[in-house]
């Protein structure tokens, strides 16, 4: 009320800006803190084995596949949905891109055909999810659960449950190796994350995603075609599953129906721990990236310390909860201080 006396454009906007920046930082302090803490634990327990460039690259490479999927998942969750199928879709895309037919054609034409097939399969599966959710009005949880079962089954049928080796070496060569000392796969993750950030925060697509997730009815009555948008969002998630499949092919040099098992849960956990609202209407790409890094670093620290899988599971459960609690407390404090 008091700001009315001041020049509206300078005075009123500035604090808003500042509180926004603070807000963003505040929102992520908990995550950054958790990550730093993890690194400290890593350094203390594993010393140089943890804190060296190779190990950092190992962590980043490991984070890259699940990271790409998590970016897609961030959009779906922000739009108020959920996608349990991305892991299975990734498996399906990896299998489809490595069938003898595809690989033969890729050898005859160009390796990028394999990439195209993987992306197309992912995209189409995602669009089908979207159509089921938006037009069929099937709850997202169920629609994508069904897609998960179907995609996994289809992948098994296509591959006859055999591992399909990638034989197109040009394809592998294109993605292996480093660029400026950083693995190409990590670059892919960075590019996808950056594109995701721009898309979510700076484009009409992102604005619609937030709107649809925040209040679908209000968005509809404001003239947004929420059904079409929902289809697109799931399509986007499918596309990231396709990209993930390509990355997985590079990483494992093989396509198989078991690729991506449980990746959907990991991705959802990373997204939600990152601060995206599971109920929709608020999403953060930075948070998601931090969430992914936390989980991968965690696994790395565990491995460095030779922890058994059982102990890892228990510790993971506890750490997830602690991270979320910490995050909430800090976010609440940063909110009340602005």
């Amino acid at each position, binding site marked *: *009320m008091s*700001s*009315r006396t001041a020049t*509206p*454009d300078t005075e*009123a*906007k500035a604090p*808003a800006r500042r*509180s*926004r920046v603070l807000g963003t930082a505040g929102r992520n302090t908990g995550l950054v803190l958790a990550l730093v803490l993890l690194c400290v634990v890593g350094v203390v327990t594993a010393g140089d084995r943890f804190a060296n460039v190779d190990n950092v690259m190992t962590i980043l490479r490991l984070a890259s596949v699940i990271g790409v999927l998590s970016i897609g998942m961030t959009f779906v969750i922000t739009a108020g949905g959920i996608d349990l199928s991305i892991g299975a879709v990734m498996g399906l895309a990896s299998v489809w891109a490595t069938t003898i037919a595809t690989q033969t054609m890729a050898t005859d034409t160009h390796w990028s055909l394999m990439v195209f097939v993987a992306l197309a399969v992912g995209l189409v599966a995602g669009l089908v999810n979207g159509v089921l959710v938006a037009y069929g009005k099937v709850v997202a949880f169920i629609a994508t659960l069904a897609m998960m079962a179907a995609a996994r089954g289809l992948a098994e049928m296509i591959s006859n449950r055999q591992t399909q080796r990638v034989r197109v070496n040009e394809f592998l060569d294109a993605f292996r190796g480093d660029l400026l000392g950083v693995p190409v796969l990590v670059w892919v993750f960075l590019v996808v994350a950056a594109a995701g950030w721009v898309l979510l925060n*700076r*484009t*009409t*697509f*992102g*604005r619609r995603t*937030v*709107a649809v997730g*925040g*209040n679908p*009815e*209000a*968005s*509809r*009555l*404001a*003239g*947004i*075609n929420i059904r079409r948008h929902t289809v697109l969002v799931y399509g986007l998630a499918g596309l990231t599953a396709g990209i993930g499949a390509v990355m997985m092919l590079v990483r494992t040099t093989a396509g198989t129906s078991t690729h991506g098992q449980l990746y959907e849960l990991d991705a959802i956990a990373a997204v939600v721990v990152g601060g995206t609202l599971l109920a929709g*209407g*608020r999403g953060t790409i930075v948070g998601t990236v931090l969430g992914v890094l936390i989980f991968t670093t965690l696994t790395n620290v565990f491995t460095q310390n030779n922890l058994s899988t059982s102990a890892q599971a228990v510790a993971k459960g506890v750490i997830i909860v602690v991270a979320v609690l910490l995050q909430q407390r800090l976010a609440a404090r940063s*909110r*009340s201080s*602005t």
Partner: protein
Amino acid sequence: MVNADPDKPGEPPAFLSMRGIVKTFPGARALDGVDLDVRAGEVHCLLGQNGAGKSTLIKVLAGVHQPDAGEITMDGEPVALPTPVSALRAGIATMYQELDVVDGLTVAENVFLGHELASAGLTRRGELHRRTRETLTRLGHAEIPPGREVGRLSAAGKQIVSMARALSRGARVIVMDEPSAVLDSEEVDNLFRVVHELTASGVAVIYISHRLEEIRRIGDRITVLKDGRTVATALPAAQTPTAELIRLMTGRSVENVFPDRSDVAPDAAPVLEVDSLSLAGVFDSVTLAVRPGEVVGIAGLVGSGRSEILETIFGARRATSGTVRVDGRALRAGSVGAAVAAGVGLCPEERKSQGLLLEEPVYRNITLSTFARTARAGLLDEQAERAEARAQIDGLGVRPADPDRVTRTLSGGNQQKILLGRWLVHGCKVLLLDEPTRGVDVGARAEIYALVRRLTAQGAAVLVVSSEIDEVLGLADRVVVVADGRVVHTGPAADIDEHRVLDLVMEGSAA
């Protein structure tokens, strides 16, 4: 502070009093030292602009919010109200402003929510239904079956359930936060009858409303809040002049609530033509037209299908038959996108659930239907958006005038202005307003009326639905009366009065 009767001898002393209540929210000081005295058996009215702190005050009383400072006493004893339960135990029952019913439960279950009738955990359904039916009968709504799921009731029905719940608590004080907002005049009469019964039996009622004429009819004394402070208390409801109340509430005087009608060329081609539009089971064969510069009002009872008519015109519901034309071109049925593109805008009935992204900043709500237009190649131009939003905020007098404020924290009237602002930015030719002043204070109300007229002066066509018949008659050039989903009368607003409208409605419904 104006205090009209500082405990005169002979008058009964206040049995409930709140002293120096302060409540701050992050970023807002909602209450800044409020005093309130309520006597047994009176109807104590709480007045104030949107955002004055009325709801916050009663939430403090209901144990929902904890005050930062201040004291509450009952019968002279200080009471602590840390939870809603403790308030209910102390005999304070509240009907909240936001509908507080559970859609998935039956009417009876809603009425007894929180104090279920049960033996050993098992619900006593017979008893539950019997007592609910009693309460509903008392409210004049014996026709609502106790076993009906509340989700199937209209907004008015839900309000009645909420009222029945407050009654069923057997409280000494019943707080009603804008109960009449979703009721039509007949329902309001019913409500007042019940309030009289209650006060006659010694129950105190705290009554909040923005409709001053209601205050006059029902109120005993008035307390006025402004910016979180008590500015006047114990004003006699019957004697205090309206102008005085408005001055106390707003700090200025508001004259001529309804602006003058502008002249509409009678031969002008209509912008909006609705031709025998039907929606199976709700309304049938609705035909109407709105010319540029004209305001057409739709009057009718709650549940007569007025909201559905607007929503169907807008394409939010797919018409069973009939056409909608804008500037002579037919709109694609069931497509909001087509309507918006053709320059039609709708301010929906339920602001919060249908209109706003409550967690988003104000400016994004204002530009919700235009951000794609300001964007370049899909990239948002937030500078331009803020500028557009700021223009609307200034033009409409949205308070606080901060485009980055989270929309949830704004008062109802200001939220309504944001919705209007959205369509103003869009620049629409046809504006559909569903209950545009529901829950909006007198000051803002006058501003909204003036705004509607400013729009029509610029050639817009406005179709407005309101449950307040005087609002329809005062604001509109022509009136369409609907009953049971059918148009029973169309004609100039000047030729008809409130009684005639009610008669038409009753005839239409009985038929």
